[in-house]
């Protein structure tokens, strides 16, 4: 089973090398004194869709696809014309290779739990090509086959903010079977498949933290 976990980070593009390769900061460069030594290089073409198409191996993936290609990255996806500030959802392998964050956690300036900034993508096996987004959630009640699940907007799960809502969900069908199931009454991580996420009313994580026009209770 090939599985890749992406971690959402804020991204400021500091240099462009080609239509898809750029150097970026994961913190506001104004607070880093524009230190070019802290730039990290990423190729926005090294994505899950490139792996699915057979152009690269899954182990070579650096970053999630752009939102217009079904991913969660919002910088790029190519230049000129691409976005310079946004979210970069990079792999654990990329984080380790660049020494950016180990172990991965809440992005700098962000809030909530680390798993609220994670996406899990499978490439083969029983979960072939399914994607799951991390949320902070709590099971309020169970009535087979559904569970009444309270879900927080990503980044809002640890600050006492009200949940985004509650939904009756079939967690056997909608949740990542390879993560521990939620215990009723105990809030914790829940990885929901993209098809379900698109049907519930939650926001994308605020990356960078000041991104977005919506008013989360910050």
């Amino acid at each position, binding site marked *: 089973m090939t599985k890749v976990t992406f971690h959402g980070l804020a991204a400021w593009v500091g240099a462009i090398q080609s239509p898809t390769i750029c150097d970026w900061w994961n913190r506001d460069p104004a607070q880093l004194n524009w230190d070019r030594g802290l730039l990290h290089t990423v190729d926005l073409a090294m994505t899950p869709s490139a792996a699915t198409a057979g152009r690269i191996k899954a182990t070579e993936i650096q970053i999630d696809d752009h939102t*217009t*290609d079904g991913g969660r990255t919002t910088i790029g*996806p190519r230049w000129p014309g691409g976005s310079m500030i946004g979210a970069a959802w990079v792999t654990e392998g990329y984080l380790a290779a660049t020494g950016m964050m180990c172990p991965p956690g809440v992005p700098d300036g962000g809030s909530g739990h680390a798993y609220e900034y994670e996406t899990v993508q499978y490439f083969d096996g029983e979960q072939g090509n399914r994607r799951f987004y991390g949320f902070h959630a709590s099971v309020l009640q169970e009535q087979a086959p*559904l569970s*009444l699940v309270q879900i927080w907007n990503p980044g809002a799960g640890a600050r006492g903010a009200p949940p985004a809502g509650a939904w009756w969900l*079939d967690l056997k*069908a909608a949740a990542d079977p390879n993560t521990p199931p939620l215990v009723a009454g105990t809030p914790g991580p829940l990885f929901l498949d993209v098809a*379900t996420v698109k*049907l519930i009313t939650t*926001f994308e994580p605020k990356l960078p933290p000041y991104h977005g026009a919506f008013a989360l209770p910050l």
Partner: protein
Amino acid sequence: MDCHRELLSRPHLTVISGEPDLELARLAALVRPSVRLDGRAELELLFGRLLMASDAGAPIAPKTLDFVGHATAATSQLRLGDWVLDAANSTVKAFFRELAEHDALARLGIHAVRLLACKTAETGQGRSTICALADILGVEVHGTSHLLYDAHYGEDGFRDEWEFLLVCASDLRRTTSEPCVVPAAAHWPRTLDVDALPAAPLGPRATPWPRRIAPAAAARQLLALIQRDAGAQLPGLLATPSCELALPSAVPGAYHVAQVLLDGSFLRFFPDGAAAPGVLYPVDDAHLLRRIVDELPGADVSR
């Protein structure tokens, strides 16, 4: 007619504002075939001709309907000639609602509408229009928060490699909290208030599951089995009802509709109207509920 057949066979149906403008003229020369028009009347005529060509057997390719023009200065809404695509305008809404009622987009193979003018998703009015048109037409509607110009176009229309400049209604709903854009939040708990449920007379319907009328006594029994303060939505099409119930309302001849789901484990009510997602309430005793429902008389109205 030949030009309409060709328009239907392409992946993008490009409609360019007909106002005298060098940039738009350059785009019209670049995108072949494309149509230039000056407003709603000409757009209506175009749709009529395309539907005639479709009915005459013209091959239909899946396509986007691309409106290309300039945006208004204050609200960044696309102008087609002198017609501003503003969903706050009832004439605009009525036009697109009529297209939806005639199923025109599906008949022409149109799966998405794109408002291709500069920054059509940059203002609240623009985002509201994008979402309102998506709701009316039942297809994805795209706008952009970027500047668009001729480099983004090729002979087939707006080039696929620049699609990342666009944002769709679904994404807008996930990234803004403007009341005009975001659907009603998934409030919880949705306590069941039977008197506040919409009521309507029974009419013909196309759904395959049976419908039964619950007299007042049976309705009381059914409602007593429900956990009224545990209501929430069930996203998606996971559950097909096994039966629809018509519960009596305070208005003679009008009924509240409920659906029996998951073998009687849940009842779904529609407090926000029949067109909105229903709210599921768990049932304490599914076996008893099924027994009560089985004894109710059928209530199907023939067409």
